[in-house]
């Protein structure tokens, strides 16, 4: 996209940023992330319908941070939401990241907090139809049927943690799975081990998951893993009134409360 390359080139030449993270051509017609440091390399950047990964995951990596803020990043709406959520979680400041977004036919940058929040709110998550169908499907099952469904899906999981690696909001340097005193999450990929891992990931993403789908894309054995984290966020949205990824300075869903949070199950 010419506009994109132009913007990237300007940002790098003017030294406004030291790095532009974007999508580039990969092998076999796939796209892969590229990290452009020199303005001549700005032509590597592409942007088409194949670009679905959420690049915000790189913003929290040590190697990237060592290059130094501010960083420009080619952003899908989900990426912008991830950035807003990461700012709300004190991982970096608004001025540290410059999202490059699409607005209609134009490509522009976002350089202040109001525009950032506006863009995030104006571009809510849109699920592809097969996702909507699958969610309906599961909702219509009984508890036993759901158990069977998930046991079937999770039986393929072999704890590669690609879902964790792809998620921008999984940035803990020491994950709960790495803790062995006590061993919260059983390591082996048996039924209990995978159940514990995915329960924990979903709970940790409650009210934080911006529903970008990167985890599902990353899973090598095709488990619809995003459905779990999305369910946790749906509960946070509907029961707790909490929408992630649209405000830069709200505390986390599970670290706040309303005195009148409704529950129907406490005796």
């Amino acid at each position, binding site marked *: 996209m010419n506009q994109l390359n132009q913007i990237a080139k300007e940002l790098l030449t003017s030294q406004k940023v030291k790095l532009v993270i974007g999508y580039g051509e990969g092998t076999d017609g796939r796209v892969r992330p590229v990290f452009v440091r020199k303005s001549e390399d700005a032509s590597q950047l592409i942007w088409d319908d194949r670009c679905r990964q959420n690049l915000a995951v790189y913003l929290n990596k040590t190697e990237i941070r060592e290059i130094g803020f501010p960083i420009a990043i080619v952003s899908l709406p989900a990426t912008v939401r991830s950035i807003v959520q990461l700012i709300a*979680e*004190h*991982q970096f400041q608004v001025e540290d990241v410059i999202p490059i977004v699409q607005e209609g036919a134009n490509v522009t940058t976002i350089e202040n907090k109001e525009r950032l929040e506006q863009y995030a709110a104006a571009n809510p998550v849109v699920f592809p139809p097969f996702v909507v169908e699958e969610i309906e499907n599961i909702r219509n099952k009984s508890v036993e049927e759901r158990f069977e469904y998930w046991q079937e899906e999770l039986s393929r999981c072999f704890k590669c943690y690609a879902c964790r690696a792809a998620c921008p909001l999984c*940035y*803990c*340097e*020491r*994950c*709960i799975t790495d*803790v062995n*005193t*006590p061993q*919260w999450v059983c390591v082996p990929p048996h039924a209990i081990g995978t159940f514990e891992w995915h329960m924990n990931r979903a709970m*940790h993403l409650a009210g934080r998951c911006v529903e970008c789908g990167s985890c599902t894309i990353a899973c090598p054995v095709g488990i619809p893993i995003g459905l779990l984290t999305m369910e946790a966020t749906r509960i946070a949205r509907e029961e707790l009134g909490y929408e992630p990824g649209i405000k830069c300075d709200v*505390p*986390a869903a*599970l*670290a*706040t409360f309303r005195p009148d949070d409704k529950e129907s199950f406490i005796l």
Partner: protein
Amino acid sequence: MSRIGVFVCHCGENIAATVDCEKVAKTCAKIPGVVYSVDYKYMCSDPGQNLIREAIKEKKLTGVVVAACSPRMHEPTFRRACAEAGLNPYLCEMANIREQCSWVHPKSKATTQKAIDIISTLVAKVKRNRALFPIQVPVTKTALVIGGGIAGIQAALDIANSGHKVVLVEREPSIGGHMAQLSETFPTLDCSQCILTPRMVEVAQHPNITLYSYSEVESLSGFIGNFTARIRKKAKSIDEKLCTGCGECMNACPIKKNPSEFNMGLGTRPAIYIPFPQAIPNKPVIDRERCTYFRTGKCRFCETKCPAQAIRFDQKDELIDIQVGAVVVATGFNVVGTSFFPEYGYGKYKDVITGLQFERLLSASGPTLGELKRPSDGSTPKKIAFIACAGSRDPAKGIEYCSKICCMYTAKHAMLYKHKVPDGDAYVFYMDIRAGGKGYDEFVRRAIEEDHVNYIRGRVSRIYERNGKLIVCGADTLLGAEPVEIEADMVVLATAGIANQGAEELAQSLHISYDHHQFFAEAHPKLRPVETNTAGIFLAGACQSPKDIPDSVSQASAAASKVSTLFSQKELTREPVVAVINRTAPPVYSTCVGCFMCQSACPFNAIEREEIRTRDGKLIKTVARVNPGLCQGCGTCVALCRSKSIDLQGFSNEQVYAEVTELFA
């Protein structure tokens, strides 16, 4: 290696009747890590405790489990016994096999098995207990009292008299608060100023009290024992050291007709003013919004007339930072004005006034010098209607609570009116009479029986003006809701007591909780009425909820005693059941990723940000840090933390995990 001792108590027959204690002791001896397991009739007795002490020394125990009653009963007893024998008291736990086992189940194998399970859970926990030591926090022995009403004055005097320094900050030009505005107080009808002024003078003269009047607390930072308060001393435009309080400036000032705050708008004062004659400090201030010089640059008459040359037009606000160890908040309350009531005239009728305004009319130093005159035409009112519960107990008006003092002061107002105008008629419209204090009910009876005040049980739906009189439309519910109409010369509304102006902002800057009416929240409604949830900050008086003078004074003394307790030791000692964030060697420093969910969740503000920097000042990471002086040990942060970087001493992750998994081993 763990060397745990298990001590099973029979508690006479209390446990032994349903649990086979001998069997329990024998079975527990086989738990890995247990080197000594006995049963005994009364563990809490002296010989019982001796058993534990001896065992610790002889068997070199590293942990003790006493299986007996609830830890809520005897944990301190056994922890002390262990400490006496040289074992850290936090290495002792109690297994509750009485209240939660022997007393609630019949004698059976299942009951004995349950006792064994409970003990094995606690053994698993104790194996992972760490020696903990009480936390010492240094204490600055100066108190800050915010608010100079009767509660603030009482608290300041009590703390100062116990030998500690006090800084008293008052927003108005003078201390005294609402009590200074009252004419006489219930139930004794003694003169309010007469009992208050000596206290005010004591405050001014006390060597341990520093008084900052016309000042506000701008911010408070720090924690218990170590607060830093920033006080803004607003510019009075007077050099206080030179001013003699002679009052010439007030005579000279040409702008005399400003509504007087002290007289609740019923009288006037000049632009340079002392609020009332007995003010402490007895020095004027210039109201810069009304003073001609500050508005137009002309005048300065007061300056020319001042014999001491004490006027300073160029004076600026001063910011003062002080170190204090404790704060007492005594900022008082306010009352709702007449404009709150559409049905009573929206504040348009000059002769419909609030109880506080009526006090000023009654007062000998008030705008009418104690003669009861109608604000509209100065005539003596021959019929006054007093309306109790004006605004209070009314969910439709948003004030669902009772303001507590109005029944009493309404009776007082009616009585004082009758004393001043014996041939006048007083009517009180009431819902209930709340006169629960000492001598209170007798006082109300006096109003009815001796001073012949007419009490009508019913509410007033409307007041309107007709031919110079106020028509009060009420009902008498004791006569079956018969309508009552009074042609009154004056109406006094006992308006609801509400939080003082600026209460919410103050609470936020002090980090104390407040309710939806902006009254400050106490730590526990019954057992901790003068403390807040913020350690080191105490409450006194009506800022917590509307109350009368005896209760305000009691609370103030209670708060002062809490402060004195805090100051009575060199250092503050706290239980070490606090949260700790892990720290390791560089380059990791800590597994905390700085998301600060813990900070958002902590109700006690105990989590701070810590910046870890290189020697040249470059920021490596920002992590959380627990202030052990503030943490209360609830563990909410521990359960929240995604990376498990924070743990609670005494109920650590390893311990609770072992307790749960041990049950099914």
